[in-house]
């Protein structure tokens, strides 16, 4: 039986990088913030388990680690998708059925607003207005703006992103 092991290799690499971090910061005064910054660089976000391990290694209470993570805007506790989908819910899009676009996106991706798909392909967010009211309803995927949308188009557009 042959199975792909590259996932495991990626994890092992991250693990090794994390271990290196611990060695570097274990006795470093005030190391919590730099270690969180670097751990986030390794994992793309701050997994709960990694936070537990940081707390243990640095001998800092868990609640304090969480308090620091949630204080600074830079830290993300949930994985973010490779593609950030932003459905506009500004006034113009709202009256033109922006919420139906959002519903279509939610249904297609199987996630709620603010969530990320399990395969880490998409993060779904809403935005107050992207300034393309003439094209309402609209949605942004990464830096591309898609306008004059009807719910039926949403799936096809989303599928075009890797």
């Amino acid at each position, binding site marked *: 039986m042959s199975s792909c092991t590259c996932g495991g290799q990626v994890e092992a690499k991250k693990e090794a990088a994390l271990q290196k971090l611990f060695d570097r910061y274990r006795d470093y005064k005030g190391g919590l913030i730099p270690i969180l910054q670097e751990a986030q660089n390794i994992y793309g976000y701050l997994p*709960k388990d990694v*936070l*537990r391990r940081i*707390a243990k290694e640095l001998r800092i*209470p*868990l*609640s*304090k*680690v*969480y*308090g620091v993570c*949630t*204080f600074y805007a830079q830290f993300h506790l949930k994985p973010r998708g490779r593609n950030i989908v932003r459905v506009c819910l500004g006034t113009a899009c709202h009256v033109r059925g922006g919420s139906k676009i959002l519903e279509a996106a939610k249904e297609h991706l199987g996630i709620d607003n603010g969530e990320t798909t399990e395969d880490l392909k998409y993060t779904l967010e809403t935005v107050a207005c992207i300034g393309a009211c003439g094209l309402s309803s609209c949605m942004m995927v990464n830096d591309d703006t898609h306008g004059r949308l009807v719910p039926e188009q949403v799936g096809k557009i989303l599928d075009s992103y890797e």
Partner: protein
Amino acid sequence: MEMVKLIINGKEVEVPSGTTILEAAEQMGINIPRLCYMKGLSSAGACRLCVVEVKGARALVASCATAVTPGMEVQTHSPDVMEARRTILELLIANHTPDCLTCEKMGECKLAEYCYEYGVKESSFKGEKHNYPIETSNPFIVRDMNKCILCGKCVRVCDEITGQNVMGFAYRGFNCKPAPFYDDELVESNCVFCGQCVAVCPTGALTEKQMQKKGRRWELERVKTTCPFCGTGCNFDLLVKDNQIVGVASNPTSVVNGYALCVKGRFGWDFVHNEKRIKTPLIKKDGQFVPASWDEALDLIAARFKEIKEKYGPDSFAALSSARCTNEENFLVQKFTRAVMGTNNVDHCART
């Protein structure tokens, strides 16, 4: 000790250096309101209710965190101070569940007390309020963060007294709140349910689950007692209504423990009124436990001990004592074992 002279509300006062303005005022019988200050905990200076006017200062200063200086002139209730305190109270109640009529803390709530004192009936601020779910998933503590005023005493007591650090401040700004790791519920955290946080909480944010609907705070008689669970000898007050214990409250005058208690002392009193509690000695007769009088039971024990000692010798006897006994009781156990039974076979559950 170096003494410092200052003037509070026009009267000169002399206090040891290092004393805070709040403490100095207290010595003169002036009551300054405070929500985040507590003797024995570090000062946060966060609630700002204790602000006073100090001549020459750019803004009002937090009296709980500011030490007196020589010649300082302090006004504790000037118009600016009163305006600030009233506004702060209004800001706090604007984001607070207004269910005082059914609130468990009613009667002991510091926020209600100060609103009464400062005549704050309602808030002139309309707007968003927190809408957190109320946490009731553990057997001891009810957490209603909608009533939290972020004094942070729970955070500090968990750190500085219990040393458990379950609670920390999470998030920031308007969304700031004390929370365990990952904002999980207490049962999922490393909380040991000592309940110190409940004891110091000035509002209804943290209340004792066992006391819900058991009585208003002013109906409860406080009976000082010693904890029966171990030999530490912690003192606390039993809260009694209609001859029934409904709860336990810290008694800060306790020499041994101050207001600190453990889960057993604070929440483990429910055995007292338990129906299954054994109230008389039981003697097994024909395979059944039968209630007996103390005289009857003690006579039986004495007779059987004597019999065993005569038949098998003193070393056939051993005594194991309990940490729930007092020192005196433990002394008597070993005295009895050695002097009466004639053996050194005596031990204690806490010896290991």
